[in-house]
């Protein structure tokens, strides 16, 4: 049968415009470039028109905010009811210093806390480990035992302030410390809310702060799901993170695809462990990057909600609204910040943050302008928070729900994002799932490749970075940065030694032995971890007990 091309009126109108209006102009005035690409190196069309959204059905694909598939947001009132949570990630030096920064941020109108831990803590080593030399308190706050955690949250009421903790490989230990501090404050675990990052899959893909091999590490994550569902029901035990995947070089579609597929993997593992879908999935939250390409980012967040809702319905058969709704935190792209002319970063951050807001984020961190140089100074951290307050209170963008909904470009890009992510889902499903794909090095190689292609595009001048490969300046005024000196390690090692001297050594060994047994017998490790933390066993000791049972992860060469 001969193929007959059906042209719609919208398509015909577009072709007419191209012929009669566009062509004569192009002949006289060629465009600036032969190709226009997003920061993900995706081609962008000259124009988007009704022809591009013809395949979309309003009810099925876009709908109203608060209605399936939640493309336009999970709340019918958007930010008219409640603004997003302004949650600045902070942590440096000693627990005393970070506690003071937290109190300062709360006094400036921030309404949630977010803890950055240092590298020894992230890797499960104590401050006095030889491997910790030069790293204590540098990239975040140093925490080696409950004694540090008590100082970190001193006079911060954990029943009322929500705290997000960026910790992954040793997340169950830090959760235990947090819960014991809350208990000592007299807080009710049933009323505590907050978030544990606890996303180990993206560590193997992107950030690479792992301890144990991937399968036992997944088991520890599921232990926290089970424990929180029963004992800390308002707490989010995982924040499935695309942020680090993007920072490591992913495109927007790769960030979206790998993050959501990681989320599906946690759901599958939870179900396999016997958890009830609609009991634990509503506590899974997400964390995305906000990069420079404004519309690509907005489309990414809208697509994320739609894909998650459809996957929860179609893959797992859920009809529970709380399971279907994807909630997420956003952070502006650290990787986009420049050392050169660092004050320009304030502008980048503002535009990226606006994309997060127009994408309907539930909470937001804005980077400080000096973060390509060091950890933020007080002044830089304050401007970052004020940036969010200006967007919220001055620009009017929070007055209406999903203001970009219905834009031919944004809707068409949202659709393209969904298709790109689904293509990756098919490839990963065919490998047997995300754990298997990671074991094969698939997402790792995809990221490395994208990072390299982007670097090449920058070096060819196709991707412009203002102040770096265009508009560069010779003599730039220096900005002052925060310096963390080696006295932090001394201070932390002192407290660690005092803690070890004061505690009941027998109780510590018993608790660690119990933890080893729980791990060997495949029981939930949370109760034994909490007991060890209460006895002031250190982070390093607890992780060592689990290393004894599980071994350590060695990355193959990909």
């Amino acid at each position: 049968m001969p193929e007959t091309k059906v042209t719609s009126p919208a398509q015909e109108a577009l072709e007419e415009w191209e012929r009669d209006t566009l062509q004569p102009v192009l002949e006289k005035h060629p465009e600036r470039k032969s190709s226009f690409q997003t920061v993900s190196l995706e081609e962008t069309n000259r124009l988007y028109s009704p022809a591009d959204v013809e395949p979309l059905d309003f009810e099925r694909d876009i709908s109203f905010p608060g209605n399936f598939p939640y493309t336009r947001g999970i709340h019918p009132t958007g930010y008219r009811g409640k603004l997003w949570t302004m949650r600045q990630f902070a942590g440096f030096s000693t627990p005393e210093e970070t506690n003071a920064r937290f109190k300062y941020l709360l006094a400036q109108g921030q309404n949630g806390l977010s803890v950055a831990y240092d590298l020894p803590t992230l890797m499960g080593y104590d401050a006095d480990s030889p491997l910790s030399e030069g790293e204590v308190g540098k990239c975040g706050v140093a925490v080696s035992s409950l004694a540090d955690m008590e100082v970190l949250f001193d006079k911060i009421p954990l029943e009322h302030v929500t705290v997000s903790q960026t910790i992954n490989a040793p997340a169950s230990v830090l959760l235990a410390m947090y819960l014991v501090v809350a208990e000592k404050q007299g807080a009710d675990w049933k009323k505590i809310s907050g978030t544990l990052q606890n996303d180990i899959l993206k560590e193997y893909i992107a950030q690479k702060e792992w301890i144990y091999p991937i399968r036992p590490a997944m088991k520890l994550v599921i232990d926290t799901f089970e424990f929180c569902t029963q004992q800390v029901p308002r707490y989010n035990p995982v924040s499935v993170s695309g942020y680090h995947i993007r920072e490591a070089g992913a495109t927007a579609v790769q960030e979206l695809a790998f993050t959501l597929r990681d989320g599906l993997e946690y759901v599958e593992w939870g179900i396999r462990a016997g958890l009830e879908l609609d009991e634990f999935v509503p506590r899974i939250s997400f964390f995305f990057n906000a990069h420079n390409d404004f519309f690509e980012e907005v489309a990414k967040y809208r697509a994320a909600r739609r894909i998650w809702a459809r996957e929860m319905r179609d893959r797992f058969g859920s009809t529970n609204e709380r399971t279907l709704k994807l909630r997420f935190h956003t952070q502006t792209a650290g990787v986009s910040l420049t050392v050169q002319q660092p004050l320009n970063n304030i502008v980048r951050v503002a535009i990226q943050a606006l994309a997060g807001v127009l994408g309907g984020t539930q909470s937001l961190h804005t980077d400080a302008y000096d973060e390509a140089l060091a950890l933020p100074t007080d002044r830089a951290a304050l401007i970052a928070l004020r940036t969010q307050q200006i967007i919220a209170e001055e620009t009017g963008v929070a007055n209406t729900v999903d203001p970009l909904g219905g834009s031919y470009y944004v809707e068409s890009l949202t659709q393209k994002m969904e298709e790109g992510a689904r293509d990756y889902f098919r490839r990963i499903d065919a490998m047997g799932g995300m754990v298997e794909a990671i074991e094969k090095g698939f997402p790792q190689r995809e990221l490395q490749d994208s990072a390299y292609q982007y670097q090449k595009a920058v070096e060819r001048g196709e991707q412009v970075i203002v102040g770096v490969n265009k508009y560069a300046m010779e003599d730039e005024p220096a900005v002052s940065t925060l310096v963390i000196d080696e006295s932090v390690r001394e201070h932390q090692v002192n407290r660690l030694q005092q803690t070890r001297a004061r505690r009941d050594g027998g109780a510590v060994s018993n608790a660690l032995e119990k933890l080893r047994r729980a791990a060997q017998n495949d029981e939930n490790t949370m109760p034994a971890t909490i007991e060890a933390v209460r006895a002031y066993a250190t982070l390093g000791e607890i992780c060592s007990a689990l290393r004894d049972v599980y071994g350590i992860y060695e990355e193959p060469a990909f």
Partner: protein
Amino acid sequence: MNERKIRVLVAKPGLDGHDRGAKVIARALRDAGMEVIYTGLRQTPEMIAAAALQEDVDAVGVSILSGAHNTLCPRIVQLLRDQGMDDCLVLLGGIVPQDDIAKLKQQGVAEIFLPGTSTENIVKFLRENVKPRE
């Protein structure tokens, strides 16, 4: 006689896992015709010096984003010198505050490359500064 290819060890010391930069550099140097050995993550200065000796490299490119450079870099330089690799260049890339740069150079780091450096500049630096072998 064929000219000997420049051999570079790309190393990630310390606890930091951010290896995007190290991997991009390794690939760019390979594309520029150099022989590149990548150590993988979390190598101690001792492991890096031993690998440099075993692989007989002309340069060691160290990537550190965690702020631990003042502790780790001088030690790598010292260990290389102790094993007689006086001509082996040590290059550092990463997040390094301006105030640390002069001191690191005094301690024997040949050059420090900050975020935003083009890989072409690093290739050029190596070609101009690696000492020809006899």
